[in-house]
Structures are given as C-alpha cells and as structure tokens.
C-alpha cells in the first residue's frame, strides 16, 4: 500500500487551510467508503484530514422551523434523532435502510453525500472507467449493468449514486452548506449533484477545496407523513436496486402536496418533479399514482439488462403512495 499522511482538524478554518495547503489531500469522515477505495487503489490521497472532531455534530431547529444537520453527525445519530423521526420520518428510514449498524456508527452526513458509486468497473483498476480514468471508456454499457442507471445517464457513464440518505434529502429540498478559504457557500441538493454529460468524474458542484459543514432541511409539513422504501437483492446490507422517498398530503381524496424522489436509477438522487406536477391537485388514486410514475419514467432509457427498474420504480410509486393514502384516511 502507498504511504499517506494523516492530520486531525479541530476547527473548520483549520480543516480548510490544511486542504488548501495539500491539494492531494482528502477529508476523512467515517472512512467507510474512502478507506475501501484507498485499499482498491481508486483513491490515492497523499494526506487524510480527519474532520470527525470538528464541532459539526449537532442537529437543531432553524429559525423558520426547519432542521440543520451538522456534517459530522453520524448516520446512526441522524436516524435516531427524535425531531428527524418526527418531522422527516423518510429520512430516518432511508438512513436505517443503508449499510450496517457498525458502518452507520462511523459514517457521517457529509461523507454519505460524497460517497462514490459502487459500479464494479469503477472500483476495479484493471478495467476502463470514465468516472475513474476520464476518456478510458464505459464497459458497463455493453457489460454488466443490471443495477445501473435508467435516468439522466449518458454514453459516458451509467453508474448510480449509492446513497439512501440523499434520496430522502432530495425529496425534502435539502440545502448543503460548505466552507472554503474564500468563505461559506450553499447549494440546493438539486444543484449539488451535477448532470453526468461527458464529465462523469466531476460529480458535484462543490468548489475546489470546499468542506461540507452541514445540511439544512427547510420546513415541510408534508414531510411528517413520509416513507422510504428500499428494494435490494438481499434483506440487508446491500445497495438499492430501486428505492423511493415519498411524502403525501391528501385531503378529501385530493393530493394537496407530494414529494417523490427515486434512488438507484441515476447518477444522483432523482427528484421526480414531473410526477409531482401530475399529482398535485389530482385524485389520490392508484391510477393517478401510476400515471404520475409513467410521466416521470417516460424519460427512462433502459439498457438491455436494467429495464426492470422502470417497472420496479413504477410499482414502488404506486405501492408507497397507496400506503400513505390509506394511512391518511385511517
């Protein structure tokens, strides 16, 4: 293994300064993905800057009633937080659907957002991959892709984003805060992850040298009635092949408000705005839910082996919205 340096940062300016002085450095959160990638040789940082001791581990209400979640809050603490569970239950469920207890105890919110795809070509240095080695090609297009993207992909990359947490954050319009040497900044999650295009190796819009400091969830009454459902190839400890974060407000049989986001279908958590537009103001019925899913999935472009994801995602929309509707009536 290649030798690397290790430094621990104790405040945000210090962490940002360390990275500024060492461009080949990486911030280290829980290390649950970065260390694996280092072992595989995909990441070869000269320096790790440990940010787990930064004072960013709180969850608190914002002045308008939203929630601000610190970047170093562990996945376990986030899922267990009573206000998260009360106001954004789909977020707690999404986090608990991921990884294992041990990994969630280590993994941080900031690191979860920045985790890399689990595409088997990306993690294998012996194979081409445009995300890892730009211009080398994408063997998944004609090779193994049964768990690859059906939405928003390109001929350069069909990898999916692995995070469950980010799917719920996308549904709830999370805003990601960061710090750079030039000062703080913010990115709505819709802009945080970049479209794939011909630059699959550039995954986020974070400026160079930025440190994620936290995630803000705006107040959203509809989120209190939300659910995350994940489908995977075994009962636990596997990435999604399809997932959905859904929130629903139904009154008198009419959809007043709805949030929908899909996981495992794109290079980023996929906010289903087309489906939401179809639903709002319309009937709260299984037919309407199916039609809304179809509206979103119209843009799907399946490869030979991943077309089932269209059916799966559609079925999840109908099933979860129907469940939420029935619970609202009870």
């Amino acid at each position, binding site marked *: *293994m290649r030798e690397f340096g290790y430094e621990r940062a104790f405040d945000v300016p210090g962490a940002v300064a360390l990275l500024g002085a060492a461009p080949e450095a990486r911030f280290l959160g829980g290390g649950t993905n970065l260390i694996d990638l280092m072992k595989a040789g995909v990441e070869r940082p000269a320096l790790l800057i440990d940010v787990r001791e930064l004072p960013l581990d709180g969850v608190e209400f914002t002045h308008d009633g939203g929630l601000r979640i610190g970047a170093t809050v562990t996945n376990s603490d986030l899922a267990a937080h009573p206000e998260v569970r009360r106001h954004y239950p789909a977020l707690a469920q999404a986090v608990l659907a991921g990884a294992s207890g041990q990994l969630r105890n280590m993994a941080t919110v900031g690191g979860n957002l920045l985790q890399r795809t689990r595409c088997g070509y990306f993690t294998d240095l012996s*194979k081409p991959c445009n995300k890892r080695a730009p211009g080398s090609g994408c063997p998944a297009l*004609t090779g193994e892709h049964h768990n690859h993207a059906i939405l928003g992909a390109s001929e350069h990359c069909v990898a999916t984003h692995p995070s469950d947490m980010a799917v719920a954050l996308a549904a709830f319009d999370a805003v990601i805060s960061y710090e750079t040497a030039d000062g703080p900044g913010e990115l709505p999650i819709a802009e945080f992850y970049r479209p794939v295009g011909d630059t699959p190796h550039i995954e986020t819009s974070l400026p160079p040298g930025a440190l994620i400091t936290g995630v803000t969830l705006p107040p959203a009454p509809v989120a209190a009635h939300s659910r995350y459902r994940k*489908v995977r190839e075994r009962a636990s400890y596997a990435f999604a092949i399809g997932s959905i974060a859904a929130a629903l407000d139904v009154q008198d049989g009419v959809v007043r408000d709805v949030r929908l986001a899909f996981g495992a279908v794109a290079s980023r958590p996929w906010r289903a705005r087309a489906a939401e537009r179809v639903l709002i103001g319309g009937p709260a019925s299984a037919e309407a839910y199916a039609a809304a899913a179809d509206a979103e999935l119209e843009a799907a472009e399946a490869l030979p082996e991943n077309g089932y994801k269209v059916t799966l995602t559609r079925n999840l929309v109908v099933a979860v919205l129907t469940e939420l509707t029935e619970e609202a009536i009870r």
Partner: protein
Amino acid sequence: MTPPTTPTTPATTTGISAVTGAIGSAHTRVEGRDKVTGAARYAGEIPFAELAHGWLVLSTVARGRIRSVEDSPVLAMPGVLTVLHHGNAPRVDTDYVGMVGRPNPVLGIFQHDRVPFVGWPVALVVAETSEQAREAAEALVVRYDEEPHDVAFFAGRSDAYTPESNPMVQAETEKGDVEAQLDASAVVVDEEYTTPEEHHNPMEPHAATARWDGGRLDVIDSNQGSTWVATELAMLFSLDPASVRVRSEHVGGGFGSKGLSPHQVAAVMATTILHRPVRVVLTRRQMFSLVGFRSPTAQRMRLGADADGRLRAFDHQALSLTSTVHEFVESSAVLGRVMYDADAHRTFHRLVRLDVPTPAWMRAPGEAPGSFALESALDELAEKCGMDPIALRARNEPETGPVSGLPFSSRNVLACFEEGARRFGWAERDPRPGLRREGRWLLGTGTAAATYPSGAGPSTAAVTAEQDGSFTVRINAADIGTGARTAMVLVAADALKVGPDRIRVRLADSDLGPAMFAGGSMGTRSWAWAVTIAADELREKLALGGGIPPEGITARSNTTEAIGALAKKERHSFGAQFAEVAVDVTTGEVRVRRLLGIYAAGTIVNPLTARSQLIGGMTWGLSMALHEEAIRDQESGSHVGADLAGYHFAAHADVPLIEADWVDDPVPDDPIAIKGIGEIGVVGVAAAIANAVWHATGVRHRDLPIRPDRVLRAADEARRRATEGAPSA
C-alpha cells in the same frame, strides 16, 4: 390454507445413538475457548523471526503471452527482496498423479510465459513487510502479447465435448431407450435449468508460511488435509516425502477450496531462494481466480411418467465449463444415479473449455447444482401428474441403485420426508399455486430430496495410553471449523470406554502419518474408523495388564484393508428439505420464512456441531437460491465485483427460522456406521425454495439465483400471457 409459520413441535432429536456414551451427546468444541479468546493462531498470524512477505501478481489479460516482467524498478523499491517470475523461478515438476489425480497446471507457477486466464500468477514480489510487498506488486509492470479470448458459457455451445471418465466422475450412464420411453409416457417434463458461477469464500483467506528447518521443508498452512498438501509439495519440488512437514492447526473454513494452491508453491520457492521464512497470503480478490470455484451449469431434464407418476424415462444432461489447461467436471448429473429409477435412464456430462480458471470442488460439488435441476423437475412432474411431490418421490423409490443395481447400505429418505412433513405441517398444504397472500406477500411452500455419497479414504491413527491415565490420539485429520477435533475426542472416548476429559487429540500435522483430507463429507467417517481400530487394539494391549512405561503404550491402525474389504453397496446420506417463502411480485423480492431439513446420515457423532454444520449447509442452499452469482465481464474475461461487496450471499436478515434434525439411520453392515454431513445440508435447498416460489406465485424459476429482476420479468410475462390467453368477452 396458510401453512403454520411456527414449527408444530419443538426441535428434538429423534436420532439413534443411545446416549450412554460420548457419541451422540452434545459437546462444545474442545478448542472453542482458544478460538473465542483469540488464543488460537491461524496460519497467517503465527510469528516467525526474519519473516519475509510475498505478494502474488496476477495476469490482467485472459489469454496471451508474457512479453516482459519489468522487475528492475520494483527491485529498487523499499524493502523488496526479490521478484520471482517465469524468467528466474525454480523449476517444479507437475508430471505426477497425486491423491486427487493429476495436478492443476496452475500449481506450476512461473514455469512458462503462457497466460490462460485473468488472474493467472505471473510474479511473486517478496519484501520485508506485507505492505512493502503489496505496494511493489501493484507497481510491477507486466507486458503481454494479448490474444482473443472466449469466456462465454451458455447452453447449446457447439464445441461442448464429453469428458473422459475418471475415478472421481463417470461421465455417462445409460440404460434402456429414453426416446422410446418418453414417447410412451403420459406425462413429460422437458426443461432447462441454469446455475451461475459460484465461489467459496471461507472467512479465513488462504495463507501459508514456508521455511527450511534442519534440512526439512516446514509449511504452516491453512488447508483441508496436511497429508494431501505435503505429498503434492514433495512431488512438485522433487523432495523426499519424509523431508516435508505441513501443519494446519486451525482453519477458518475450507469448503473444498483449501488443498494445494499457487500461494503455497510460491512461498516454498521464495524461502528456498531467500533462506528465510516466507509468508504468502491471498487477498479476497485473488481467491476469486486462484482457489477454484463452482462452474456455471446448463442442465436439461427430461422426465417421462405414467399418469400415476411412475417414471418411464429419466434423462439428465449437464453442461459445465473447464479451463483450457485442466479438466474438471461439475458432476451435476450423478445424483439421479442414486435417487430415482426409470425404465430408461440416462445421465451425462458435457464440458466446454473456456479462457477461465479451472473450477474445483465447492461444497456439495455436482449434487448442489444437480439437485436444483432434478428436484425442480420432479416438482414440475408432480404438478403435471396432479400428485403431491412427496407421494411422487415415494412412488419412484428404488429397491437398489438405479444404475449400479447394488443394494443400499441404508436408505431412509422416505423417513426424512415423513418426519419433515409432520413437523412442517405439509398435510395442510393446498397444492394449488398463487392462492395465499399476506399483505403484499404471496406465500408458498416447497420440498426437495437430498443425497450425498458417504465414502471413506484410507487413514492411519495412533492412540497412546499415557502414564497419568490420559490418552493421546494422533490422527492427521483437519478441523476446518466443523468440530473434527471434538468429534475425534468423542469417538476415542467411546472406543476406549473412558470419559472424553481423558482424551487429548493431535491433528493437522503431516508428521502424524497419512490420513484422509476433510472433503467429500468423508473426513469424520474416515478418521473415526482409524481411531476406533487403534483404540480397540490399545484396549486389547492394556487388557494384558502390566505397567505403563514413560513413553506410554501405543497402538496404531491403518484402514486401507478394512475399507477395501467393505462390501460394494450404494452408500449415501439422504435428506428432505422444506421451505416456506414470501414473494412480492411487484418488487421481485423473495424472502425465505423458514427452512426445515431432516436427514438420515448414520450415526451423528456430536449433535451440537452436526446441527450447526447442517444449518450452515442449508444457509448455503438459501444463498445459492437467491443470492450467489459471480459476474464475468465478457470483454475483459475477468469478474466484475470480485469481493464480498459485489458477490452477495445471505446476510443474517435473510436467514430465517432454520431447523435441522435427523432420523434413525442404522447401517447394519458398516463397522463405523458414521456417514458424512458436511455437504448434504446444501443439497436440494435451492430446489425446495424455487418450488416454494412457484407455489407462491405460479411461476417457475429455472435460472439461479432467483433475483428480483427475474421475478419481476417473470411476473410481467405471466401477466401478459394471461391477458393474451384470456378468452375474449
């Protein structure tokens, strides 16, 4: 009616073995405390002074020649001691016949420039530390002249051929006219089944340390048989067998993968050149190409029966793959030669040679994939005949071996079904598919038969009466996590008629003398036989009276003649598997709710570890049904996701209520009456689960694993067919 979700009776052992002796009563592992406290050392963690570390470099092309190994820059890296490759490595001799036949040519590492698959060893980098060796190995540039490769396995390949029969596998058997009997059959099942490439991944990766000690080669290893490994190393390196010692005290799982592999050969080469101990440990990824795997299979089953279910025609055709350098047959079609008779009966194997590593034994080789096809087809036949699947099997229960005509030493498969059916609640089962729903889940149940041969291999043992009243048993057995050490304590205790606390067992050291390896479900039977004979003889010696000298009194045994004298019979373990599943056809998720396996496997030595081993086997079967599958990238010829993140097997949440138990299974003519239980737990489980998925959904799944995308596609197709086939209004 919904089957009960809890067992109808508590898990009690109905089996045999009057529990007056040690055999048949539950004992925790004698080395259990050492293992859970970390005192037990495994091969990769035993310290040696001056230890150097080797790291294997594997080919990245699937076919071609090595043009150059650019070792100069690597030799200059920190800590690097040497780089071995085909240009400088010691010669070895692979022209021999060992305990399991001719050696796999992959053992002849660094002997030539040809590359027959991705993952072929092309160099060994040795350095002062493991980290230095790894960094240098990753920096080593190897250039190849690449040639086109072919790794595509599928049914109907025109280049499939019939392998030569060998002592391990008879390629073909045939009696009667299958086509004529199929024509005369009232009911015919003719279907194809596939199973994917599967890999054994014992928790402990393969590791070996080699050194020269007083003119002898000393290897600290993790293997399934030290006699096996020592003998092969002696032949490979042209050494006097007495000058090779191999030890393997604790082993964290084997499953057929831990015989001789390239890493032991590499360690011996390196220690010979460097004159210091050298350790080579495999990584998880390296294990995917270096220690064998289960070939994918494509199997065609043709069954023809009278309307009452009596088989007229039985035809099992099994295709598997092998490498271009060595032949291995996944013997999927052998179990029909034991299980069911028919007027015309044919079983055969075909192979296709591809640019991939040579497959090997993986727990229940042959029977595991073969039983998926055979026991699924039986279920389909039961459906077509309108018969209960257990009744169909009872109707076709043979008197003697369907192919051999030999009598069975004991055959209690129907007793297994009877006991299993009672405990599972099978009598209340409505055979019609697709009727039971619980929320979003469709529920179903299924069953399948299991069988595995019960063989024995020649072994020697020594039992010593010590002055202090204790006894030392020396048997070169391997405890690969099964509890073999404890089993030998119990066997010796009963044979000597003393308490287990007076027995000390030494095993896993080739200096103890030749013995069978832990494989083919033959270990316990083979070793117990040798220990019993030696113990009996020792009791006779002790009966003569007189004092015990300081060196003790020792009796020795060799079972070669006793095994040779055993009457020729069909000797097998049997079992019945039961599964209940829940399927959500809108997401494709399949969840196993409970498994029950009832076995007839002779004398059960230690119920505690036996149950554990059987449940482990059943969990393998569950994984095989729903999860396991190595994906080969056609373009590169290598795997995608060759690690435990990419290669899925059951997680705890997938493993539901599992029960394993056994029925009485005396073996009257057998001096030892112990059969094997290492593999039978796997056999039939995938079929029982697939049959339960059909019962839940009405859809047959003939390709493993039963992944969500397959369930979704099948459900879509079934819906479409139903719509198209529906009579117009």
